[in-house]
């Protein structure tokens, strides 16, 4: 078995678990970002320790308390984070069993555990809390202790409701709701694009604005504070108009392919399975920049006391963030504590990390606790966008219609600029301060260890001799980084579009054509299941409806997901129904998985049909929701999700598995309805109309 990186970095059980009375405290580096990881980890720990789920308290993402598990990303929280919890809990349970046997004067084999109580022959009754002094949890984990087989699971596999939701629905469950004693409200005035410096900034004038308590300037970093939040907002709006920025303008090219082709980027081989060039079916497909466009505004709080800094952050990687903040502020790493608190769903690397450093800079300058929130316009303009990218896919078939040539060439901007990637400091305001930090070099390490980034899902799952090349644009005029599924959104869209094109050319049914090129039984099973759910094949279209299929195994190593979408086509493109069959191996919380799949489908519909982040010479340009429309409540399809029964297989990450297959199903449905293939996202009615010209 591959070593679990969360365990390798944090082998001491005392880091993960402690016991007091009937309560279990589970500490994790994986944080709740709306995906339900909190309850899933509690279910795993509870079953392995043989305690009820509601006895487990969770502490997540605190650089001074929890294991360092780097980022909550790439759909690995259950596979890796949950796997570590299971291994730790199994070992801890056995250590306590031995201690209980000593207390009960019997052998460990004779000790059973019920609801957290150790007994032998119905006598005894010592709890974990009773035995704490007898057990040494500082001895590193023994990974050879087998976890309990699924037949013993009580909570795992059950749709246990999320226990974080009541507070979030009815009160104060978010970072935005934290109030520190004596805190000031801050706002930042940020550059409109990377590489800009602050000019014409009259600080005395800014200080004289109504409600302003402090003006904090450090190089090109500029912020104001107020005693009241609405004063800070108003003053920052005024300040925006009173300062100017100098820096290189953004290039203006359209469509996206023309922009991407302007940049020199050398193709690196990702996969070479023999000479695969020379196919005669060519698709050139693009995805535009996409905004994370979280419903909430990014928020952080910071307090600087006795040369020690505490930051509350919604970051998906509090440990790497803490290191980056410490470097920027020239503090020792242990002088900085970063504590995670939930934000609004953002699905990648948005401004959450930036705002944490900015709160810290302000708190240090004003020597008061500070709460900082960005504006809606800054969410779009200053945060990294999901990168624009392009795929040129060339394929050919032999005389029997089997695919015998396949070349997948990618070019695009980086998906990997989270803090902690590379040697630099990837925080925008760290580049702006008077003693600036350098960002990391742009890089993408290819297929390992997490399925690649721009080339994620580019190697086809189908039985074809494939060549994949990736030309990463290293130039950084546009700030881009991780957005859910990374390159898999476009790569799967490309592969699945090609499969339909080749099936059509061969005169084969799209489903049958895929099955003919698959050997993995789990892949075949999900495709057959989704076909059964929706009823396949589709009837010939009269042009007002369409049906399409899309399939992938996320990262070629995580969950299998097949999606069918039905469309209605009039002056709009509306998805009327969507079906998904998913094989995620052992499912910890089936309702949580369904929620992730449903959300992945709807979010992908939004991206694929509607979203395109545009820009001017000055920067990304979508100051409000009207300028960046997303899927609305009046265009929601019926949804049906089936989970394959695979409880004996290891859990597979599901959070991002529906994105690519859904996008592909939409493109294929338009083709099925109208006979035209739209290759440039978003797939809008305008583009469909142009395809007929």
């Amino acid at each position, binding site marked *: 078995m591959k070593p679990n990186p969360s365990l390798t970095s944090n082998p001491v059980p005392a880091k993960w678990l402690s016991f007091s009375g009937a309560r279990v405290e589970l500490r994790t580096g994986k944080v709740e970002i709306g*995906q339900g990881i909190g309850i899933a980890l509690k279910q795993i720990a509870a079953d392995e320790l043989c305690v009820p789920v509601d006895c487990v308290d969770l502490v997540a993402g605190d650089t001074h308390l929890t294991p360092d598990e780097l980022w909550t990303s790439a759909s690995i929280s259950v596979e890796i984070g949950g796997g570590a919890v299971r291994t730790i809990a199994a070992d801890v349970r056995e250590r306590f069993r031995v201690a209980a046997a000593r207390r009960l004067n019997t052998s460990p084999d004779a000790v059973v555990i019920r609801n957290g109580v150790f007994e032998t022959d119905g006598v005894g009754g010592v709890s974990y809390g009773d035995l704490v002094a007898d057990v040494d949890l500082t001895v590193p984990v023994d990974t050879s202790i087998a976890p309990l087989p699924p037949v013993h699971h009580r909570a795992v596999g059950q749709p246990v409701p999320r226990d974080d939701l009541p507070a*979030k629905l*009815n009160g104060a469950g*978010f970072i935005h709701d934290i109030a520190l004693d004596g805190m000031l409200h801050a706002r930042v005035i940020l550059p409109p694009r990377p590489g800009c410096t602050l000019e014409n900034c009259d600080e005395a004038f800014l200080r004289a604005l109504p409600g302003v308590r402090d003006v904090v300037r450090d190089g090109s970093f500029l912020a104001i504070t107020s005693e009241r939040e609405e004063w800070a907002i108003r003053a920052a709006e005024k300040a925006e108009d009173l300062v100017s920025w100098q820096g290189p303008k953004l290039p203006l090219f359209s469509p996206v392919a023309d922009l991407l082709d302007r940049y020199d980027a050398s193709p690196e081989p990702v996969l070479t399975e023999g000479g695969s060039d020379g196919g005669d079916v060519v698709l050139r497909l693009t995805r535009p920049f996409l905004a994370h466009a979280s*419903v909430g505004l990014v928020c952080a709080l910071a307090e600087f006391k006795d040369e020690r800094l505490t930051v509350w952050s919604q970051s998906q990687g509090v440990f790497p963030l803490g290191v980056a903040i410490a470097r920027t502020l020239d503090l020792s790493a242990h002088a900085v504590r970063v504590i995670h608190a939930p934000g609004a769903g953002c699905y990648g690397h948005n401004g959450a990390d930036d705002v944490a450093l900015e709160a810290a800079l302000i708190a240090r300058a004003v020597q008061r606790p500070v709460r900082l929130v960005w504006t809606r316009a800054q969410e779009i303009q200053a945060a990294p966008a999901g990168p624009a990218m392009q795929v040129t896919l060339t394929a050919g078939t032999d005389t029997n219609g089997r695919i015998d040539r396949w070349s997948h060439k990618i070019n695009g901007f980086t998906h990997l600029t989270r803090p902690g990637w590379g040697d630099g400091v990837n925080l925008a305001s760290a580049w702006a301060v008077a003693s600036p930090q350098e960002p990391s070099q742009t890089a993408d390490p290819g297929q390992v260890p997490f399925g690649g980034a721009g080339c994620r899902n580019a190697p086809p799952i189908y039985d074809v001799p494939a060549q994949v090349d990736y030309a990463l644009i290293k130039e950084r005029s546009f700030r881009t980084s991780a957005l859910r599924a990374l390159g898999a959104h476009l790569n799967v869209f490309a592969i699945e579009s090609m499969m339909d094109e080749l099936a059509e050319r061969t005169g084969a049914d799209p489903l049958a054509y895929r099955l003919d090129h698959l050997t993995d039984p789990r892949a075949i099973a999900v495709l057959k299941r989704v076909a059964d759910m929706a009823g396949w094949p589709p009837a010939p279209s009269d042009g007002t409806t369409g049906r399409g299929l899309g399939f992938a195994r996320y990262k070629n190593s995580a969950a299998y997901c097949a999606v069918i979408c039905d469309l209605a086509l009039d002056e709009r493109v509306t998805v009327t129904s969507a079906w998904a069959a998913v094989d995620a191996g052992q499912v910890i919380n089936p309702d949580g998985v369904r*929620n992730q799949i449903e*959300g992945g489908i709807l979010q992908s519909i939004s991206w694929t049909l509607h979203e395109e982040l545009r820009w001017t010479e000055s920067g990304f340009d979508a100051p409000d*929701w009207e300028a960046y429309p*997303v899927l609305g409540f009046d265009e929601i399809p019926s949804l049906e999700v089936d989970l394959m029964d695979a409880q004996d297989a290891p859990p597979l990450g599901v959070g991002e598995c529906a994105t690519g297959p859904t996008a592909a199903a939409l493109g294929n449905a338009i083709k099925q309805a109208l006979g035209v293939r739209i290759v440039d996202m978003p797939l809008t009615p305008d583009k469909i109309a142009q395809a007929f010209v």
Partner: protein
Amino acid sequence: MPEHRFQVNGKPVAVDVDEATPLLFVLRNDLGLKGAKLGCGSGHCGACTVIVDGNPVNACTAPMWSMNGVSVETVEGAGRDAVFDAFLDAQAAQCGYCIPGILMSARALLQRDPPASADEVVAHLAERHICRCGTHRRILDAIEAARQAV
């Protein structure tokens, strides 16, 4: 600064703030009611929705000068009613940030006489609320379940 007197969750309150202050900041920062959320500050996303005299209102843009004598209801005041239960039963949330505002819109729509139809609920949410996680189906189904129960 002028004093504004109004009711919040059935209790009389008085606050001394500038009359242009949006209701949202009074609720969150003066009264400590954190349920209503700042999402855009311009009345587009609906995360800040509260009920004012029976109608859903965007608290992020509603000025205090319009609040004298009114009755404001927030998620804290509504508590765990049939609408809340329907959302929990359906686990109709992912990140949950948009939900308090949607809960208040749903309550206003269902408290009407007669209650809003299913189509009116969809149209209202489409006009006034944004969800980024893709929980729309569960949200609509939860409101429909509550509507059937009313």
